């Protein structure tokens, strides 16, 4: 936000540079990525160990706590990390501030909608509706 040239060296060190924020975002990116190493690893390992991919088998797996809870965490974390990544891509390539904010808005809406559909469906399976 026009802070670039006027920023003092101290302000830059404190993270008030061109991104307009500090190191929290950098850490958030890494926390969600490390969590996804575990959650995506669990997801793939679970798929490989399932006897088949028929609907009854998958529903039985996802209705158990050991299926439903990690899957919910996987959905939440992957949508959060993916939204974050796409917003960074937009920040890099969309230079007009209004368009940049517009893209952030659209991507956020899509991510929340997608995650909501996934989580509601998971809850439907888990609670046996």
């Amino acid at each position: 936000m026009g802070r670039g040239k006027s920023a003092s060296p101290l302000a830059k060190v404190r993270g008030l540079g061109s991104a307009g924020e500090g190191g929290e975002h950098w850490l958030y990116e890494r926390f969600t990525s490390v969590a996804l190493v575990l959650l995506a690893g669990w997801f793939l390992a679970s798929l490989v160990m399932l006897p088949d991919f028929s609907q009854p088998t998958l529903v039985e797996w996802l209705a158990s706590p050991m299926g439903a809870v990690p899957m919910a965490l996987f959905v939440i974390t992957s949508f959060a990390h993916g939204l974050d990544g796409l917003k960074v891509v937009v920040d890099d390539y969309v230079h007009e501030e209004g368009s940049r904010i517009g893209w952030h808005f659209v991507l956020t809406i899509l991510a929340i909608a997608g995650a909501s559909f996934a989580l509601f469906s998971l809850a439907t399976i888990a609670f046996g509706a």
Partner: protein
Amino acid sequence: MNAPSSRPLSPHLSIYRWQPHMLVSILHRITGAGLTTVGLAVLAWWLVALASGAEAYAAFEGAMGSLPGQLVLVGLSWAFFQHLFSGLRHLVLDMGAGYELKVNRFWAVMTIAASVFATALLWAVLKGVI
């Protein structure tokens, strides 16, 4: 700030040469974008179909079992492994390690080798070949 400097300039685009580290860097972004758009759409569709009854799930299975569907799934699994291994490499680089030219190049190449190998292994297991 804009005073003339005797420090070297960045290589100009005309003498730019592709290197494994550059390829892995842009692949990290491309695979991440692909996983978020296509991958999360497939994940959401899968869960919605599972919750919506036999007919909806049959439609999902039909789409994913077709040749284009299988190609999408193989592509997503490769994208996942590439993003995973490249991401792990980034976590190491974040700690300040692995910047020596040969080391950096070696692990960049290894992320691609590992992602291709892991994808082949996964599908060999899924298809009952192993």
